[in-house]
């Protein structure tokens, strides 16, 4: 029930903030902050209370299920395991930062802004929690609309175009996933007689190869666009650079992670055969993404666009690791999701701080800021180093684990992926060089970080250092989920059960299927 409360608090808080926005402009900020903080506290509490031996069989910490549309076998089904828990922690932490950073930046329609912000967070939390595929699609869309508003209303100069592009890319790919979900539903229904959208029942379905490949393609469409993987990435630089700071933080820190989460949670365990067949191509796409993103990042002049392309590069590691199918790589992927959320979030926040002071994102108009804003400089240095993978900071652990894991799967591609680290050094140092070092441009002295800005930046520094020096708690929390996602690969089934095909029902047939849902009984 606590899981449902998280969603209820966020959604109710959003509505409340909207209403409060009619009274004054500070109240919505506090409502949003309190609601998100309450969710963070609940999640942290769950993490601390986590039984020590989660790597035993039952790795599901808690579960909440209540029927929603029983005729179709749809239930409101939430479940929490280590992976979801880590993602929720990241969500609420970045959510709080997003609210804090908007404190001064957003001054129009404050109530509606916080409504959208909280609903995006609710949608994202829903995606990380739900174990019913219909509900998953539902939340997948719920996080889309408020994000569209965030970009379209409070974004920068070219916001309308960016918002359109974001919306249409993600919606198109999402609809393909919906087709696959429906296909899966009927395939499972015909072969077992149980029509349900329950993840735990669908996960064991075995398909004829071509059916499996088609169904997987639908899921991949949604997740690869969201991640994004290179040929489908073109929405990302526009959306990231045009969104307000809070929007960019949530986009880069959280929305991209839903794609990675989808790969881990759905594609890997549900379609083991099809995924293995697709793996070399996926890894190739990952490597192309790493190098292509890095090269483009190096040549950007818009600071937010630059950071956006580093995301493309970093997300290449995610897909590389996911399709290596071993524990090391998957642990690396999960670390990458968290550390990338923190480090890229921090870089977008810095871009926001600079934009506040200079009203430009063009790095050609910056330079030599170190002397006037040393605190900002230090924090920027930390995250630039994190982004290039300096040992001692979280991103190093993530990329290292991913590369070790993928080496076992594919040597040559890993070699090229490693080259990406060199490229990362180039573009990361360029950020430092152009903005904080070099000759002092004729700017009036900038104000250094205020207390509020320090409150945003310091926790990020602490976390990224902690993840770099002592990542073990995170790895422990994730381990049980990782092994569960990989079950189909480590212990392949001995006897192949009858393979499911989709049967056609004639359009004038009179047979009436009873679409019955069965609630899942935990063992």
């Amino acid at each position: 029930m606590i899981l449902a409360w998280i969603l209820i608090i966020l959604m109710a808080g959003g509505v409340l903030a909207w209403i409060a926005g009619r009274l004054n402009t500070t109240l919505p900020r506090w409502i949003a902050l309190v609601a998100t903080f309450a969710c963070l506290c609940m999640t942290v509490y769950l993490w601390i209370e986590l039984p020590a031996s989660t790597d035993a069989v039952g790795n599901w910490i808690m579960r909440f299920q209540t029927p929603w549309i029983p005729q179709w076998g749809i239930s409101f089904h939430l479940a929490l395991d280590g992976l979801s828990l880590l993602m929720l922690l990241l969500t609420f932490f970045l959510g709080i930062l997003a609210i804090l950073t908007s404190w001064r930046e957003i001054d129009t329609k404050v109530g509606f802004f916080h409504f959208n912000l909280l609903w995006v967070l609710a949608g994202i939390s829903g995606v990380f929690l739900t174990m019913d595929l219909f509900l998953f699609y539902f939340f997948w869309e719920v996080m889309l609309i408020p994000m569209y508003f965030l970009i379209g209303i409070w974004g920068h100069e070219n916001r309308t175009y960016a918002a359109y592009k974001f919306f249409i890319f993600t919606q198109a790919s999402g609809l393909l996933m919906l087709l696959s979900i429906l296909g899966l539903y009927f395939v499972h229904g015909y072969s077992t007689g149980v029509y349900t959208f329950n993840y735990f029942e669908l996960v064991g379905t075995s398909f004829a190869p071509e059916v499996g490949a088609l169904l997987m393609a639908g899921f991949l469409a949604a997740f690869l666009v969201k991640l994004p993987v290179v040929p489908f990435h073109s929405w990302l630089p526009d959306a990231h650079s045009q969104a307000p700071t809070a929007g960019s933080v949530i986009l880069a820190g959280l929305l991209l992670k839903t794609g990675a989460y989808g790969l881990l949670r759905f594609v890997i365990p549900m379609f083991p055969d099809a995924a293995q067949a697709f793996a070399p191509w996926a890894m190739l796409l990952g490597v192309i993404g790493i190098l292509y993103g890095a090269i483009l990042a190096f040549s950007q002049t818009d600071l937010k666009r630059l950071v956006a392309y580093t995301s493309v590069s970093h997300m290449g590691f995610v897909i590389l690791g996911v399709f290596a199918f071993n524990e090391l790589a998957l642990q690396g992927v999960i670390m990458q999701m968290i550390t990338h959320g923190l480090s890229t979030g921090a870089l977008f926040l810095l871009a926001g701080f600079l934009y506040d002071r200079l009203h430009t994102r063009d790095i050609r108009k910056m330079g030599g800021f170190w002397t006037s804003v040393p605190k900002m400089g230090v924090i920027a240095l930390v995250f630039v180093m994190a982004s290039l993978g300096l040992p001692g900071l979280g991103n190093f652990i993530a990329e290292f684990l991913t590369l070790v894991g993928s080496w076992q799967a594919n040597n040559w591609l890993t070699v090229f992926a490693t080259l990406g680290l060199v490229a990362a050094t180039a573009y990361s140092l360029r950020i430092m060089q152009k903005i904080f070092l070099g000759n002092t441009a004729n700017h009036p002295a900038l104000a250094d970080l205020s207390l509020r800005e320090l409150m945003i930046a310091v926790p990020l520094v602490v976390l990224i250092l902690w993840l770099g020096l002592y990542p073990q708690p995170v790895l422990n929390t994730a381990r049980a989920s990782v092994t569960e996602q990989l079950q189909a690969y480590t212990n392949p089934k001995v006897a192949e059960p009858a393979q499911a095909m989709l049967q056609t029902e004639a359009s004038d047939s009179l047979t009436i299927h009873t679409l019955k849902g069965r609630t899942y009984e935990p063992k």
Partner: protein
Amino acid sequence: MSRNDLLYLMPLLVLAGGAILNMLLVAVKRTHKIMYVLTILVHIGALLALYNIKNITAYTVYPLFILDGLAVFNLGLILLTSLAVTLLSYAYFEQREERKEEYYILLLLATLGACVLVISRHFASFFLGLEVLSVSLYSLIAYLRTRERSDEAGIKYLILAAFSSAFLLFGMALVYAVSGTMEFSGIGNYLSSSRELDTLLLTGFGLMIVGIGFKLGVVPFHMWAPDVYQGAPAPVTAFIATVSKGGMVALLIRFFSQAGGYRYPDMLLIFTIIAIASMFAGNLLALRQKNIKRLLAYSSISHLGYLLVAFLAGNKLGVEAVSFYLVAYFITSLGAFGVVTILSDKDRDADKLRDYRGLLWRRPVTAAIFIAMLLSLAGIPLTAGFVGKFYLLAAGVNTQLWLLVVMLVINSVIGLYYYIKVIAVMFAQPNAKREPRKLLHPVFYLTSGSTMMVLALLLVWVGINPNGLMQLIHGLLDTFIAAR
């Protein structure tokens, strides 16, 4: 005609009686308010009469009518929709000088025509219902005759509808000439006994599709839609988009399944082509529209295309999906045209895109309702449109109509573009201060406003908790499926 027949036809008799009563009232004294209240009462009376017969198992009034679950469901839907249109009409027509009273008579008659369509099982009643509906619509469309475009719209509809009726009649004649019967089930029997489809019969069916397709506004019989939608008064546009199309969809389902059309791949092919063409033409033509009413007209063309996907899927899931989608589409269309109605002023309808600029900041509630309606048309979760679209896709996947299903998905994406375009206009910064309109007494807006609120709540309620509606449809359609 037995007493039982009268009892079962009571909803229609109430409507017909109400229309006559209204007409006599106009002869005595013209009062807009009394006409309005009386029309509402007639609708409520018809709904009560319908409630009385809700649990029937297929009752046939030989030879013209049949009342089964499908009929009861669609009658209810049509009556409720027409009631909502009536409720929205008062504030709209009160602002205008023209004589307003006849509008309600015509509206009742048009509703009667649609109701006859829904329950007919015979070519004679089919044609009568269609003509009652069409003739009332001719005058409804051109009702505000001093307006610039209303004559054009009325005459366009008159000529095209008369043309398509002629096609339909000729088609019916050919089918009758071959099969020797005018009852739908009789045609079905004839078809199942004959080996192959007669060329003459196929021609007959083809000509009938012209008539049916015109009323549905599907490609290639869609040319009238944008002009008529634009020229007609906003409440009438809402009526055309919903009741007139819904009645024809119900008839099509009944005719097609009773005559056994699903057995003929040729027929399915024709409808598949129509469906795909409607989806694409509607969506592509809507992309560059700057006029809201025209945009909604094109969007409704494509929505009828979506609807045909489930119609082609046939079987129980398909019919359920069509029924569910109709409900969602009705709520959404009523809501969208309702917003246009509310925002319209004395001289013209609020149909330009720039009338909506910054609406979210000027009139937040109206804009929020309009956004919800547009998102529902686009099929976004939390709205009825999403569950409806999901139902359509499920029906399509269940029958493995992959081509149609993929086309539906592609078109949903194209459609998104123009729906969010309108939304983006609404949250843009408003232009310079507009001069405030002269408003009527707030009581006049109360009914319109509360109708819109009810529609918005229904939209979200069906989107979040579709169980009730699904069970209702499921229960009512059992008798229809069993009757086959």
